[in-house]
């Protein structure tokens, strides 16, 4: 076979045997190899190697390969509660973030006065580091924080929002901080997606009798599907990695899976179990991403 981009006239009708035909192909593939070599080197050094060593570490032990690290991981009292907390956070947080982001993006699309100012204000949290965001919200929720000051000034009893025995309020605080911090990512993706949809579709739907909700459900959301899919995958994977906000707000009281990885590595000085945990997070993230891609597959996509 000749190179697919060779002009038809240059392609021999009957491939003559010998090195005559194969020679240009080999030259082509070696040029391609040369071109992608830098990225291969970088990927191997910065991605492949750490991953291989991480996997080896996760299965590593004093007597060769073992699954003992995973057993230790799952027998830790904090493990299952961290898994539960992480899942609960994801299940509650992601719908809230998507509804909020969509509402904000639709507001911007309606072009009110100062729409671009709203856009930048709503995008600001994107630039705030998660630890900083956690500390900001700590000043709100801590015992002598802004929230309790406000309550006191209104003549109400202050509440220990972040106390370990007050699970709902602790969860609520982490949820609010994470929603504040990470909704802007979804928002920015959805705004970009909306901008690529011509207004004609919504106008046509309106002319044919669709109300606002019908337009949203039957026209805007389906057309927004690729953006929503991207945002959902990114946001879910990042939500599995939620860590600094909860650490800043609650310390160990609201354990999350990645927080546990950190604790195993620094606190308990056991890189093997930490690697095992990281591997679990990676596996779950990958399964989720593939699941989303399959679940949200666009049936018109294949045809395009």
């Amino acid at each position: 076979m000749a190179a697919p981009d060779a002009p038809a006239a240059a392609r021999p009708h009957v491939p003559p045997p010998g090195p005559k035909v194969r020679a240009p192909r080999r030259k082509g593939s070696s040029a391609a190899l040369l071109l992608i070599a830098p990225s291969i080197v970088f990927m191997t050094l910065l991605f492949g190697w750490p991953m291989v060593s991480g996997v080896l570490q996760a299965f590593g032990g004093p007597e060769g390969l073992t699954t003992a690290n995973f057993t230790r991981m799952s027998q830790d009292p904090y493990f299952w509660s961290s898994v539960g907390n992480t899942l609960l956070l994801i299940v509650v947080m992601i719908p809230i973030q998507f509804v909020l982001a969509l509402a904000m993006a639709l507001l911007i699309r309606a072009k009110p006065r100062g729409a671009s100012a709203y856009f930048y204000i709503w995008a600001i949290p994107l630039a705030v580091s998660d630890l900083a965001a956690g500390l900001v919200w700590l000043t709100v929720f801590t015992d002598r924080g802004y929230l309790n000051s406000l309550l006191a000034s209104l003549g109400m009893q202050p509440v220990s929002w972040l106390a370990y025995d007050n699970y709902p309020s602790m969860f609520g605080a982490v949820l609010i901080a994470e929603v504040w911090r990470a909704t802007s990512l979804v928002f920015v993706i959805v705004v970009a997606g909306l901008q690529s949809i011509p207004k004609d579709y919504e106008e046509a739907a309106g002319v044919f009798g669709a109300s606002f909700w019908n337009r949203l459900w039957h026209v805007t959301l389906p057309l927004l599907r690729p953006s929503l899919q991207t945002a959902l995958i990114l946001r879910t994977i990042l939500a599995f990695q939620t860590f600094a906000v909860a650490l800043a707000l609650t310390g160990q009281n609201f354990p999350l899976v990645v927080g546990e990885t950190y604790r195993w590595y620094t606190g308990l000085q056991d890189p093997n179990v930490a690697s095992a945990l990281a591997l679990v997070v990676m596996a779950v993230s990958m399964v989720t991403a593939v699941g989303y891609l399959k679940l949200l597959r666009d049936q018109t996509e294949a045809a395009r």
Partner: protein
Amino acid sequence: MADISIKGLHKTYPGSTELATNNVSLEVAEGEFMVLLGPSGCGKTTLLRMVAGLDFPDKGSISIGGRDVTYLPPQDRNLSMVFQSYAVFPHRNVRTNIAFGLMMKKVSREELERKVKWAADLLQLSPYLDRYPANLSGGQRQRVAVARAIVMDADVLLMDEPLSNLDALLRLDFRAELKKIVQQLGSTTLYVTHDQVEAMSLSDRVAVMKKGQIAQLGHPITVYEEPADRFVGGFIGSPPMNFLDGRITQQGALEVGGQSIAAPEFLARAAARTGGTPVMVGIRAENISLEQRGSEGSLDAAVEVVEPLGHATLLTVDLGGQTVKVQVPATAKVSAGETVGLRFEQSALRFFDTETQLGLTA
């Protein structure tokens, strides 16, 4: 089905100081095919969008079938529309695209299926009902857009340059088909185009628009033959009407390019009183015939360009320094550089005021 009554519409788009429509009033009778014709930026699409409810006027009113709809959102107006970009939903197949309006109206399943089948048959879309728009040609997408509009049984059918994205041959075919379909439906139609041939061939009446105002409203043939002003005469027709600087002398003759022919009664009478007036003469290329040079009642002119078009031959001639387009039968034997006599068909001569550019009539 219903009539449309538009009264005194003013609209200025935000960020613009120019009026997009300037005090436009228009009555479209029930079942009438009205075409809004004009160059880009004349306000015809703005007017259509206000009837559709996609834009709201600053002043004025629109009523459909006697109901004031000026500020109603589009979904409450019982309309259907064909968009210039077609706006066929890419995520719905042909069947559900056509059925979209019916689904929003929550009609029964049997009726929905019956109507979709009827429209698909009418527009030859039956084999493609399960396809997605990405797998259709431009012409087929256009048909889907029309099918989606005609299943609605709406009071008013709006079309925004529906043929402008089709190639020339397809446009010609579909124009006739569209006319047949709309005649069958008998619905009140408001149709926007910048193509004067489309306007002539489709409309019952045509409203020629210029700078946000209606320059002339009338039967297409009337608008063609008796343009209200120079703009309309120059916009409609291919080639556009010839405009020549002339003069009515006190003796009652029409002087063009230093030669003279007889002037019509009403102008001659007026000129006799005032001692001669300048006029602008309008004459269409097909209303000029060739004569021997110097023959009685004709004007001598030099042929500059000869363009055989197949069905006729188009001449560009020089008449005393003014350029005139003349359409002669394809059999005429003329060559560039020749001097010929031009005979203007008296009944086809139009006169315009040199100042206001408005038509002069008896």
